[in-house]
C-alpha cells in the first residue's frame, strides 16, 4: 500500500467510523461463551469479542471466558472513561467495515478462523496508525496480565513460586529491630 492509498483508505475509514461503527457491521458478533456472572464493565458484545481475542493471545489457558471475566473485574478499578474506551476499542476491533478497509476482511473478528484472527492481531500490531497499535497492545496486555495472574497458567511456563503459606510475617516490633522508635 503506498502512502496515497493508505491516506485515502485512512480517510475513508475515518468516515466509516464516523458513520457509526457497530451498527454498520455486516454480520453479527458470533457467540463465544456466556459469562458465568453479571458483568460490571464490559458490554455483552465487548465480552464476546474479548473472549475471542483472549483465545488467540493466551494459548496457555483455553478458558477465554475466564480471562474476559477477569478483565471485566480488573477494569472496575479503571476510570469510567477508560472503561468506555475499552468497550469502544473492542467494538472497533470486531467491526468488519474498518476491517475491510484496513485488513481486507469481510467478517467480524469473532467469525474469522483462528489463523485469520491471528492475522488481524498482527495487522493491528504492525499498523502505521498509532491508535491501532496501542489498541492492539491494550487488548493483548490486559488479557495476558489477567491470564498469568491465574496460577492455572504457571505450570505451562515453569513458574513455581513458594506457596503463600511459606513465610510467617515477623511481628512488627521495633524493639526487636534495634532502631530508635
Amino acid at each position: 500500500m503506498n502512502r496515497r492509498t493508505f491516506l485515502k483508505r485512512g480517510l475513508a475509514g475515518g468516515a466509516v467510523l464516523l458513520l457509526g461503527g457497530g451498527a454498520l457491521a455486516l454480520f453479527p458478533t458470533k457467540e463465544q461463551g456466556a459469562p458465568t456472572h453479571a458483568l460490571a464493565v464490559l458490554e455483552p458484545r465487548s465480552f464476546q469479542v474479548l473472549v475471542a481475542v483472549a483465545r488467540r493471545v493466551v494459548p496457555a489457558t483455553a478458558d477465554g471466558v475466564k480471562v474476559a471475566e477477569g478483565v471485566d473485574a480488573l477494569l472496575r478499578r479503571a476510570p469510567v472513561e477508560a472503561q468506555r474506551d475499552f468497550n469502544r476499542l473492542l467494538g472497533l476491533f470486531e467491526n468488519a467495515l474498518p476491517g475491510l478497509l484496513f485488513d481486507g476482511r469481510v467478517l467480524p473478528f469473532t467469525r474469522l478462523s483462528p489463523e485469520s484472527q491471528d492475522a488481524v492481531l498482527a495487522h493491528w500490531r504492525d499498523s502505521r496508525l498509532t491508535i491501532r497499535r496501542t489498541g492492539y497492545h491494550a487488548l493483548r496486555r490486559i488479557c495476558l496480565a489477567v491470564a498469568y495472574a491465574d496460577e492455572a497458567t504457571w505450570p505451562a511456563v515453569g513458574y513455581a513460586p513458594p506457596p503463600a503459606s511459606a513465610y510467617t510475617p515477623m511481628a512488627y516490633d521495633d524493639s526487636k529491630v534495634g532502631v530508635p522508635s
Partner: protein
Amino acid sequence: MTKLAVVRENPHVIDGSKSGDLDLKCDVCVVGTGAGGAMTASVLAAAGFDVVMIEEGGYWSAADFTMREKDTTPRLYQEGGTRTTKDLAMTILQGKAVGGGTVVNWTTCFRTPEDVVQTWHDKHDVKGFAYPDLVPHYEDIEKRLVIAKVDESTLNQNNRKLFDGCKKMGWSAETLRRNVYACMQTGFCGLGCPVNAKRSMLVTLVPDAIDAGARLVFRARADKLETVGNLVTKLHGTLLDAEGIAPTGKKITVTAKRFVSSGGAINSPALLLRSGISDDGRVGARTFLHPVIGGAGIYDEDITPYRGAPQSAASHHFAHRDGEVGFFLEAVPWYPSLTAGAAPTFGAEHLAFMKQVDKTATHIAIAIDGFHDDVPGGRVTLRESGAPLVDYPIPPRLWDTFRFAQKRLAEMQFASGAKEVVTLHDPPQRMKSPGDIDRVVDAAMFDVGRVPVFTAHQMGGCAMGDDASRSVVRSEDLRHHRIENLFVIDGSVFPTSLGVNPQESIYGLSRLMATRLAARK
C-alpha cells in the same frame, strides 16, 4: 513500640468502608500516607499537632501479601495496575494503599544526588534549602528504616548479571542500599512484603503517627479542597467500599488549620486541579516519569528471576551524557502477570518467551527526564470524571535515548554471558551476538506501540521554587504561593526528575519540611 495488629485496632483508625458520614476537625489534614504523607504526619503528630490522615487505599498487612499478583496487584496499585499515559504508550506502576508506594516499591534507596539539588537551586529557583540541610534528615531516616548497602554476595542472578556485565564493559556499577531488616529474600517486594522485612511506611511511620495520636481514615478519597480567599477551609471526600471501587454513599469532611497534599505526583496535582487551583497551567505541568525500556537476556544457566531481592545493583554510568538525556540501569523481577504484559507479541511466540523464564534476566534503562530542554516531561490533566490523566508525549530525543540505551543493555547482557538478547519490541528483535546489536537495534522502530515503555517513578506536577510564575509551592516550606495554609509535601514538588529511585528523596525532603512546619505552632 506498637505492633501493627494493635495499630489497626486503634480507635483512631477509621475504615471508611464501614463508616457513616464523617465530619472531622484537626490542626493538620494530610492527604496520602506514602513516603511524603506518613513522614509529614508522624513528624507533626510527634510535635503535638492534632493530625488527620486521609488515604484512598486499603489498610493491608503482611497477611494479605500472598506473593500472588491476583490478590495484590489490583489492590495495591493505582487503577488496579491499569493506569497508562493518555496515548497508552506508557504503563504507570504507582502504589495505592496505607503506606502508599512504599508498600510495593523494590526497596531501592538513594539520597537525592547533590548535583540535582544544585540544579534545582541554579535553574529552578529553589533557594529555600541546600543539600546540607537534607543530610541530617537522611541520616535519621536511614537509621529508622534500616537503610543499608547490600553485600555483593547477596545479589540474585538477575542483579548479578547486571553488576558483572557492567563491570566487564568497564562501566561503573554498585550494589544498592535497601530499607529492609532481616530480609528473607522472598523476591516479592513489589507485591507487598510478606514478612514485614521491608521498612515501608506501613510498618514504620504510619504506626508512629497513630501512636503519637494522629487519626487515619482509609478508604476515603479526597475529592476537593474548599477555598475561601487565600485559605483552604475544608477537604471534601468520598468514602469507598472495602475494595475501594465504589462509593458507599457516605462523605467525609475535614476542617483544619492546615492542609497537606501528599498524594504523590499525579494525584496531588489532580487534587489541586479538582479544587480549581491550576495556577495558570503550572499545576500538573512538568510531570516526570523516569520512562523505562527493558531488554531480556537469555542465559545458559539458571537465573530464576523471581528469587531474591528484585533490585540490589545498578549502574549510573550513563546518567550524565554530555548534551544528551542520561539514564541508569537496574534489574527488574519476574512476576508472571507483570512479565506477561510486558513480554512481546501474542500466542505461541509469547508463550515461548514466557517458557524461558528460568533462564531470562530482564534489565531496564531508566531515562532521566526534565534536565534536557527537549525532554520536558508530561502534564497531569483531569478526565471528565475528575480522575487524573497523564499526557506524556514521548519526544523524539527520548526515543533516540531509548535506542542508545537498548544497545547498552544488550552489550551488558552479552558481556555477562547471555547467549541471546531479545528486546521487548512487538514483534521482538533478537540478537545472537554483540555483532548483531547495531544492525538489529538500528533497524528497530522506536515509537508509540512499537516498544513498551513503563514508569515506576512519578515526580513533579507541583514544582517547588521561589519564582511564583514558574512554580506551585515555595521552596522554603512547600507552601502554595498564594494559598496560605496549603502545603504539598511529596514527590510532586520536584522540579526535575531525580536520576535515582525516588523514595528516599521524598523521605528526606518531607522530613525537612515537616520539621520546619512543626516549628510553627
